[in-house]
């Protein structure tokens, strides 16, 4: 099969699924819809695998397959093609998207079986995958932007899938609008880049980007990076635009798994990695990215500590993990960021699906305070969830350990990094371990707090199989990127496959050579922090369930602050959105109605009064009019003749 055909099938399989399911959107036949959607995903996944294997067989230095369909927009000097490229970076992405996507589709078949509109659900899901593939495959910024907005749209539709609930519809809207703010930044970034380089093609851009030079503020390139980062913030839920992601949990849980954990939210990271040469030219921006990423990781993790909604905890954890990724790209750890992106996709999707399974079993109950001791009722779920838990808190040899530690090492050691970033990262890792353990403890371990009328039961096979597969991936997914220091001591010296894979695709960053001791020390510190924190959490929630309350009472102010998510939503609404609406009303009433229109009326009133003052001339007497004519004629004649 030619590459073009592969691309076409890869992209069009979900599109066809979308169209067919979209046309029969009122059908309640979930089996047909599910099988259709899953097979579309399977086909896509197959294509992704074929494409990746073809890449593998190519020259490592020039690994990419490009296919251009048609000129999309051309005006003046601007020209954007609809073209697709798969290279080392996007290959990882499409594999994750289609692979994890397929599993989540499979899971959804069971999950959505009781819903009213399964066809619509699968249509949206397939459409999302299509857009996500556009995003990652697009060989220029504009095609990426299409996917970028398209996934936002699908996210909006899927978050608001149960739109009769006002809160859920509002959550969808919030997600879209917050994303829009980021998109606006993205657009500006595109403009700056186009202005600077005259092209929006990734390869050209990366080629044209100046070698790591220190550009000052105000340079278009720096501004471009800044604005692009704002776009990434919106999509990837970074401070200050992260607020939509926790609310996005209003959507169906598989959606959260696919969109809000595994794929869409990582688009920002992907975009920065895609443009790594450009970003490398703006170290200040990279510093900002790193700081924002670190801050997000820390704050989101801290919020996660006090959440009681199983999905909210996972959501904040996602935000936090995304913070790690940004920390990674901010310090130039592009490969580790991609690595973490991948492993995170595995274990976070796993955990979301697990939580979906729990919620399904608990009859749509999401509050972990009403769970506990589900280990017995849901053995498979519980087991796989545990794998995910181990992965996320970074216990070797689970996937999360390798990727996270790589990022932390870079943040400490790379020339773009700084020790304080590492410190924050470690604290965040500790918090992560704490709240994830708390989640495990409250949900699966300890005593059951399940209400009497609920009888949890294990989910059907279509839901557990994806869990198992993802569980396996969460364990072994990290083994393709074993750091050199660890690889050196392991039997058989496994190489860092991922680094080899991405070697020519990402910019190089200067790392201290021969600092293995340092690396081991740091690894040990972070691991021990996470471990201690996990043990503390276990101790607090399983052994001494009253301790958290005591602590909360003692530090009530702090607890209150964290419990209410630092009041960020309230500040946004109270300080920005509501004033804006009030101001708009004011504009409407005072400017439009009372100023412009009033002014118009004043003008017309002036004309009217002028008219009425001249009206006496118009007294209705014909002969007076005739006199005016006669006088006029006399005067005109005097001018002509006199």
């Amino acid at each position: 099969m030619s590459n073009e055909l592969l691309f076409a099938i890869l992209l069009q399989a979900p599109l066809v699924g979308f169209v067919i399911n979209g046309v029969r959107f009122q059908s309640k036949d979930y089996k047909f819809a599910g099988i259709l959607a899953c097979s579309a995903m399977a086909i896509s996944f197959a294509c992704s695998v074929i494409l990746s294997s073809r890449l593998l067989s190519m020259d490592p230095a020039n690994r990419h397959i490009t296919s251009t369909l048609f000129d999309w927009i051309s005006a003046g000097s601007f020209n954007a093609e609809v073209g697709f490229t798969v290279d080392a970076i996007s290959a990882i992405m499409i594999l994750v998207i289609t692979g994890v996507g397929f599993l989540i589709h499979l899971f959804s078949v069971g999950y959505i079986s009781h819903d009213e509109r399964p066809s619509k659900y699968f249509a949206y899901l397939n459409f999302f995958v299509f857009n996500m593939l556009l995003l990652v495959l697009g060989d220029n910024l504009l095609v990426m932007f299409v996917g970028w907005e398209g996934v936002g749209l699908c996210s909006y539709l899927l978050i608001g899938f149960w739109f009769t609930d006002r809160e859920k519809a509002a959550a969808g809207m919030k997600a879209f609008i917050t994303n829009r703010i980021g998109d606006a930044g993205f657009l500006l970034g595109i403009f700056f880049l186009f202005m600077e380089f005259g092209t929006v093609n990734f390869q050209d851009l990366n080629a044209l980007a100046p070698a790591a030079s220190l550009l000052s503020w105000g340079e278009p390139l720096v501004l471009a990076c800044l604005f692009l980062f704002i776009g990434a913030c919106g999509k990837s839920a970074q401070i200050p635009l992260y607020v939509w992601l926790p609310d996005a949990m209003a959507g169906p849980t598989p959606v959260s798994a696919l969109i809000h954990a595994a794929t869409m939210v990582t688009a920002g990271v992907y975009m920065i990695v895609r443009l790594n040469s450009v970003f490398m030219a703006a170290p200040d921006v990279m510093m900002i990215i790193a700081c924002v990423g670190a801050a997000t990781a820390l704050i989101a993790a801290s919020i996660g500590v006090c959440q009681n909604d199983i999905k909210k905890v996972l959501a904040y954890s996602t935000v936090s993990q995304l913070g790690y990724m940004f920390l990674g790209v901010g310090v130039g750890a592009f490969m580790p960021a991609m690595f973490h992106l991948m492993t995170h996709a595995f274990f976070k999707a796993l955990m979301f699906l697990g939580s979906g399974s729990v919620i399904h079993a608990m009859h749509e109950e999401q509050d972990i305070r009403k769970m506990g001791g589900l280990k017995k009722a849901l053995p498979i779920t519980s087991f796989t969830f545990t794998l995910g838990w181990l992965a996320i808190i970074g216990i070797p040899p689970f996937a999360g350990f390798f990727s996270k530690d790589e990022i932390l090492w870079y943040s400490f050691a790379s020339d773009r990094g700084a020790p304080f970033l590492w410190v924050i990262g470690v604290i965040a890792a500790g918090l992560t371990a704490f709240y994830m353990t708390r989640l495990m403890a409250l949900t699966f371990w300890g005593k059951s707090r399940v209400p009497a009328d609920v009888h949890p039961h294990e989910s059907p096979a279509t839901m557990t199989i994806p869990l198992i597969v993802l569980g396996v991936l969460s364990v072994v997914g990290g083994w393709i990127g074993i750091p050199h220091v660890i690889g050196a001591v392991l039997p058989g010296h496994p190489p860092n496959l991922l680094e080899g894979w991405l070697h020519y695709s990402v910019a190089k960053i200067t790392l201290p050579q021969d600092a293995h001791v340092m690396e081991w020390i740091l690894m040990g510190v972070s691991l021990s922090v996470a471990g201690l924190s996990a043990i503390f959490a276990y101790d607090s929630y399983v052994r001494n369930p009253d301790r958290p309350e005591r602590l909360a009472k003692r530090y009530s102010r702090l607890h209150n602050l964290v419990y209410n998510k630092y009041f960020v939503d309230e500040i946004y609404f109270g300080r920005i959105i509501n004033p804006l609406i009030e101001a708009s009303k004011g504009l409407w009433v005072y400017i439009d109605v009372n100023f412009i229109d009033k002014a118009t009326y004043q003008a017309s009133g002036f004309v009217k009064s002028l008219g009425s003052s001249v009206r006496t001339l118009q007294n209705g007497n014909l002969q007076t009019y005739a006199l005016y004519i006669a006088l006029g004629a006399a005067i005109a004649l005097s001018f002509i003749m006199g």
Partner: protein
Amino acid sequence: MSLSVLIFLPLVYALIVWMMPNDRAVRYSSLGFSIFHLGYTLAFLGGFDSATASLQFVERVMWVKGAGIEYFLGMDGISLWLIVLSNFLVPLIVLGSWTSIEKKVGGFHVSLFLLQSTMLGTFLAMDAILFYTFFEASLIPMYFMVGIWGGENRIYASMKFFIYTMFGSLFMLLSIIALMFMTEDQLGAMSSNLLQFYKLQIPFVAGEFLSTQTLLFFGFAIAFAIKVPLFPFHTWLPDAHVQAPTPGSVILAGVMLKMGTYGFMRISLPLFPEATQYWGWVFLVLAVIGIIYGALVAMVQPDMKKLVAYSSVSHMGFVVMGLFAMNAEGLTGGLYQMLNHGVSTGALFLLVGMIYERTHSRKIEDYGGLAPAAPIFTIFFIIVTMSSIAVPMTNGFVGEFLIMLGTFLAYKPFVIFAVLGVVLAATYMLWMVKRVFFGPAGKIVTEWKDKNLDINPREIAVLTPLTILIFWMGIFPNHFLDFSKTSIDHLVKNKSQYFLTIEDAGKAPKGTYSQIGN
């Protein structure tokens, strides 16, 4: 194929429709005529040569000999799509108003055809006086449309609409006359031919408001700005839209507003290059204010139609911004956005009209939970909403992207504000969608629980072409842009001394009718 036929054939339709015996016959014949006319328009599209920037299908007859006023029609890449858009919307309007117009059906279709004729005339006239004539004449049928078939406050709205636009055009007339005298001075013979106007050397003094070019520029610009409408001349628009019947709103938003932007593109920019360059910031500022202001005010509207009307202000602000960027990207985007706005806002008005026809309410607060009650309607509405807020793969994105790109290349700071408009557009539209379609069943949906609220096949037939066009224009914009590319590049390349040629040069104006003219 003759442009005169294209312009005046609707008058024949109007006459025939007028004589139809009953409403049914009026509707069917109008539909047939309008579809035929669309076909006829597409024949022009087929015969259009996109490789040249010259005027095509030119018809030129001396009209008033003494003043050099000509009956001069011509089509180029700038007017082509506006013509197609106008004629595309008319059959949809006829079909869309199938049941919503109940009184004086014949008269309604007559004014629709008259409006069509004048609109086409405006876009095709290449003589300033002829342009002015059509520009003004288009007010009359619109005035009747609002004034007779409009809502409760229709008289007020139609008067406001009429006087506002009339006020602006008077400045234009003055400027045209001034230009005609300039042609007499500079070119030897008085003429109101735009091609002659382009040859004028209009004195410009930077920084001085009273210099000739500046004054003339503002004379035209006020007329067009009111028509567009640009902030702060926009207040007629919400009133007119809210009071107009659905078809009136569609035409008004879809085509008539474009007369203003078309005027900018055809007259202001090429004719007054220095003034445009120098004073462009005024219009950019107004456009940006319009974008943000329109969006903000739209956000808090309690009435769906008014919301859409204010969104027009915002969208047209984008168009003006693109035009005043004065580069190929901006102009292309502006032109494209005119078409987009015609399609998507027209569709929005049609949609609002459809639901209004059933429930007789446009209050957003009366709705809620409409999506389960009217699923097909919801799908169309959301698609059009996406077009309106410029989601990629719909037409809106291409236009807004090019506009902002073009403006960015010329004037960066404005774009940074304009992108807020993109965000706010999403806000007001989605908020409205949320309040109308989502959430628990509202007052109206409860009332209509047992009855069918969804749209019928006729309405689907109205919306389907629009939806297809939304995606077509979004995915394959070059199918459309290729026709205009040459003209726009020509305009950009020669903006300091614009000129236009006639495709078949050597045809001198015929003086056959001058006797009557004198």
